[in-house]
Structures are given as structure tokens and as C-alpha cells.
């Protein structure tokens, strides 16, 4: 138990962030983190040493988070394949350049609101790939293993997630932006 407690301490912050990115509220994220660690503890003897413990744990947490989303949406199936067939984001449309220092345009908490609002607009299947690969720093192979996807599928989703986020952020950061985006940030 002492060894497992060390693993909990080591990974609980990362798992919480990933869970909250998927379920998008703190209470559900807390439940997901608890359920994921409990499941990992129960299944510890099934863990194969050929993958990293963290990758295995993230896979459990992502599945728990998607199940939680499904419960919230009154049983409607939610998977990481949802909404990924859209063509949106495969080609940039808004080609405006950004201000050289976009972060100087907004205060810290306002910037965090913009980033949260923007990433929450992505389909879950794109959001989770971007979070694991670009925010949490997993490799493409680890991201694929955590999500049960192929490496080419991860690459394709990552490209579209990045381009969609870039496009959506352009309305806040475009060159010449002096104040806030027209519709404000909630």
C-alpha cells in the first residue's frame, strides 16, 4: 500500500487535470480521479510491465471520464470517436497574423478564461489528444496507447485539434487587437 500511495502522490495532479479537461467540472473530475485510482489498485496484478504505469493509469482515467460524460448526458454514448469526422479545422480559413505578444492583451485570469472556453469547444476526441500530447507532454506513441488509437489516428486528430484551437484563438489574438474580443469572455 505504501508503494501505491507514492504513485497516487506522483500522478494525482496530472490525472485530475486530464479528467477535468474531459468532464469539464471539478466535482466529476474528483470522482473520476478516485474511481481511476481505485480501479488501478484493484487491477494492479493485471498491469503489464511492458507499458509505463502512467500510460496505463491515463487510459483507465480517460475511460472513466468518458463514462462520466455519458452518465451526465442521460445515457447517450460518448466515445473518443465522437464528432471527429467533421471536416472543420482541416484547412485554416482565418489567416490573420497574431499580435507579437498575445499574452500582453489580457490579464492572467482573463487569459485562462479564454483558453478554457476555447478548448472546451473542441469535440472530446480532439480535446483529449491535444491535452495528452501537447499539454501533458506524452509522446505520440504513449498518447495512442492511452487512448487505444493508432499512431496515424493520433497524428491526424492532433493536427486538426491544433489548427482548430489556433483558428479560434485568432479572434482574440489577431494583430491590431487593442481591447477584448467583441463578445467578451464568460
Amino acid at each position, binding site marked *: 500500500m505504501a508503494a501505491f500511495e507514492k504513485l497516487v502522490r506522483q500522478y494525482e495532479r496530472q490525472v485530475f487535470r486530464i479528467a477535468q479537461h474531459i468532464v469539464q467540472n471539478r466535482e466529476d473530475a474528483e470522482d473520476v480521479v478516485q474511481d481511476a*485510482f481505485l480501479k488501478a489498485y484493484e487491477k494492479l496484478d493485471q498491469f503489464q510491465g511492458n507499458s509505463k504505469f502512467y500510460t496505463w493509469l491515463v487510459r483507465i482515467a480517460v475511460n472513466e471520464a468518458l463514462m462520466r460524460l455519458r452518465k451526465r448526458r442521460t445515457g447517450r454514448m460518448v466515445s473518443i470517436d465522437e464528432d471527429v469526422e467533421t471536416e472543420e479545422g482541416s484547412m485554416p480559413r482565418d489567416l490573420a497574423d497574431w499580435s507579437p505578444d498575445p499574452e500582453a492583451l489580457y490579464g492572467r485570469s482573463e487569459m485562462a478564461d479564454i483558453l478554457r472556453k476555447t*478548448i472546451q469547444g473542441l469535440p472530446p476526441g480532439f480535446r483529449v489528444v491535444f491535452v495528452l500530447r501537447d499539454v501533458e507532454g506524452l509522446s505520440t506513441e504513449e498518447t495512442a496507447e492511452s487512448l487505444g488509437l493508432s499512431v496515424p489516428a493520433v497524428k491526424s486528430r492532433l493536427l486538426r485539434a491544433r489548427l482548430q484551437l489556433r483558428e479560434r484563438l485568432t479572434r482574440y489574438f489577431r494583430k491590431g487587437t487593442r481591447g477584448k474580443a467583441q463578445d467578451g469572455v464568460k
Partner: protein
Amino acid sequence: MTCTEFLQQLDEMLDPAIAGPLRAELQQHLRCCEHCEITLNTTRKTIEIYRKHELYELPDDLQERLHEAILARCRGCAK
């Protein structure tokens, strides 16, 4: 190289460790395509900004509560 081909290889340009003939070809395209240069630079900034800002911080008191709850549930399971 077309813009579509460039975009499909954007990952290669975002990874500084990748070198070789493909990178040289991508850089050649960048020299004559302002649109792809903007897309590359703003995509790079997008990733940097998301890395820099922790959007879902776990306050210390909540982390402790969560930590204890996880351990209590694990101790209570039938393992």
C-alpha cells in the same frame, strides 16, 4: 510542395528534433508562403500558451482531501 502538403507535415516542423531532407523541403515552402508561415508560428504559440497556463489547478487543500479519499477507498476494497 502545396500548402495542403505542408500542413500535413506541420508536426515535423513543430518538433525541433526532426531534421533531414523533409525539413529542408518544408523550409523551402515557408520561404515563399506567408500564409503557411503565419499558420506555423501561431500554431506554435497556441501550444506554448496552453502549456504555460495551468487551466485546472488542484489547490493544496483539495489535493489532500482527494488523496485521503483515494487511499481510504483503496484500503476499503476487497483486495
